[in-house]
């Protein structure tokens, strides 16, 4: 059975505190709401002003928002279905078409002979003269440059060749589209 508790007379202190809480709490509550409103309004204005200023006045912040993000968002919105090959070409130039051709038209264990450096320079394909760069985009297919035919042991094991115009077509029996100057063809056995 629960004990019946005698009501105890409130002490002076309790009286005071009850009185205080009864009278002070609505004011305190009002003050708190007022503070919150003032803080959110004033702070909000200051914060918007601060962010607006730095994004309009400081070159780096301006660049990320008004150049980089804006341009990229619009490029993505315009070309949502862009293929990986198209993205490579847009970022790294038309020469990427040759590497994508190698990747798409040869088996993974292929060893491909690349044209001489001078020929690549003539067609303004400078990036793909760098072996590590080209290898990344054709991985795991191995590339061997025609300039290195004497010193690169892989040259003799090559299975394919990237032909440009008439260069290299004498080393293949494969049929090809003569209208396209760039072809990846299997070497004569």
């Amino acid at each position: 059975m629960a004990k019946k508790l005698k009501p105890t007379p409130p002490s002076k202190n309790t009286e005071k505190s009850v009185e205080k809480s009864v009278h002070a709490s609505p004011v305190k509550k009002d003050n708190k709401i007022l503070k919150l409103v003032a803080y959110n309004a004033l702070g909000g204005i200051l914060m918007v002003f601060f962010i607006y200023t730095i994004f309009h006045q400081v070159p780096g912040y301006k660049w990320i928002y008004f150049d980089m993000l804006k341009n990229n968002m619009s490029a993505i919105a315009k070309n949502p279905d862009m293929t990986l090959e198209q993205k490579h070409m847009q970022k790294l130039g038309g020469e990427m078409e040759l590497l994508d051709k190698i990747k798409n038209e040869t088996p993974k264990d292929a060893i491909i002979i690349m044209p001489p450096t001078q020929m690549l320079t003539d067609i303004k394909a400078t990036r793909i003269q760098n072996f590590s760069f080209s290898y990344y985009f054709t991985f795991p297919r191995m590339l061997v440059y025609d300039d290195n035919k004497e010193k690169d042991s892989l040259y003799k094991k090559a299975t394919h060749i990237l032909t440009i115009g008439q260069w290299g077509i004498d080393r293949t029996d494969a049929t090809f589209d003569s209208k396209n100057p760039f072809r990846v063809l299997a070497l004569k056995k």
Partner: protein
Amino acid sequence: MTALLIVLIYLAGLSIVLHTYKPLSFLEKLSIPLLLGCFLTSLLMFLMSLVHLPLTLVNIMLGLVITAAGIGGIGYKNLSAFFQSITDQIKSTKIRIDFIWLGIVAFGLLLFYQIALKGMFWPITEMDAVAGYDLLAKGIADEKMLSNSILMNKELVLSCGPRLFYPPFLSFINALSYSLGYETPKLINIVLAGDFLILFYALVRRLSGPLAAALCTLLVLITPEMFAHIAFSLTNYPSAIFSSIAVIYFYLFFKEKDSAHAILSCLFLSGSMMVRSDNVVFIMAIAPLIAFMIYKKNLRLAYGLAFLSMPVVVFLAWNLYTKYAIGIEQNSFFVKEYTWNGDKFEKLWSYVFSLIKNKSLYGLSFYAFFTFLIINIYFLIKKDMWSFLTMILVAWIPYTMIYYFIEDEAYLFAQGGGWLASGYKRGLFSYIPLVWFYVFVSRGPSIIFQFIEEKVFGRKTILVEQTNE
């Protein structure tokens, strides 16, 4: 398979948090596991490579299960207390009417979403990744080993410059994406950056309150050059993540003497050694403070040495691996015979100052830092955060001096791609979170934020931890 791997990586990180959860906030407990899990995964893959275990997904996942069970198993008694602490923290969270905080967070999320979208849309085309760590990642995924046909091809390694010498954190993490069949591994880089921002927010929040933390995190996020790197797959952002968090946790350890902070600092520092070897300057920055703590009898010598040994071992392990397994030494870029060159020294430092003053690269970061050093002068004299500032300076000066010893002076100072204009510039990312941390956590600004927290929100817990060291 992807979900399972992510869960296992997270669990491996969580097993560490199980030992260090006591002083951590809810957001720290939430965000640390992924970062530490990635470090543990890369460490595990490195150890597997040393004993010639194939890096197949099954082997890696088994390794993660053993790691998580092993580390977590030791702390299994903490499990219920750990979950209880999370429940308590969630229950005690109060919703506050703070539209400024909400606005900052929403704006930050919008920017992060857009940069993440950019990152996911474009494939990897950055030369450092293409002719470096991402090429190695493809090799690891294809041949299931670190010592693969790429890393063992001396000619190829040398043709890639220093890029294949970088410790293998990013290569391993990217290799996981390729092994899972993804075309691009960028998602993990974006997730790591997002996770870091949550952790950074949580750390600033502990010391200066939610509003300061939101603003500070936004300013770190929008640091122009760093912001752009969220969309790339380069080592610089992960390097900044691990090294800056290691320094912040060490600062907390120095102040509060809680061993949990020391464990986390040690692990993040070791993680930074798995990302870039030049992070060794952060070991150099922390070591004097450890010596000071040992001298002051705040830390046992054995614990101090244990703290330093793990990052040092990780650093040495990779350098010895490149030397003996690949057969190439990394110091081929440095001067062979030392002679003092005053002109080079002067030119180097003036170049460095021109970089840190460049608002297109770092926005207001360094301006704010130096301004607040002056504003805080009174508190600085009273030794406010001097340990933190010591770490920044002791790391930054040797980091800059590494470049003084690079032999090829023409390439060192070359505009648009030289050592300073590319490598050094990005290496400063590690200092960006640190300088903003100082700006928002040091005594002067803290008083303002404490005023807002107390007068507007009635929160009185912030500066309690802020004692003079």
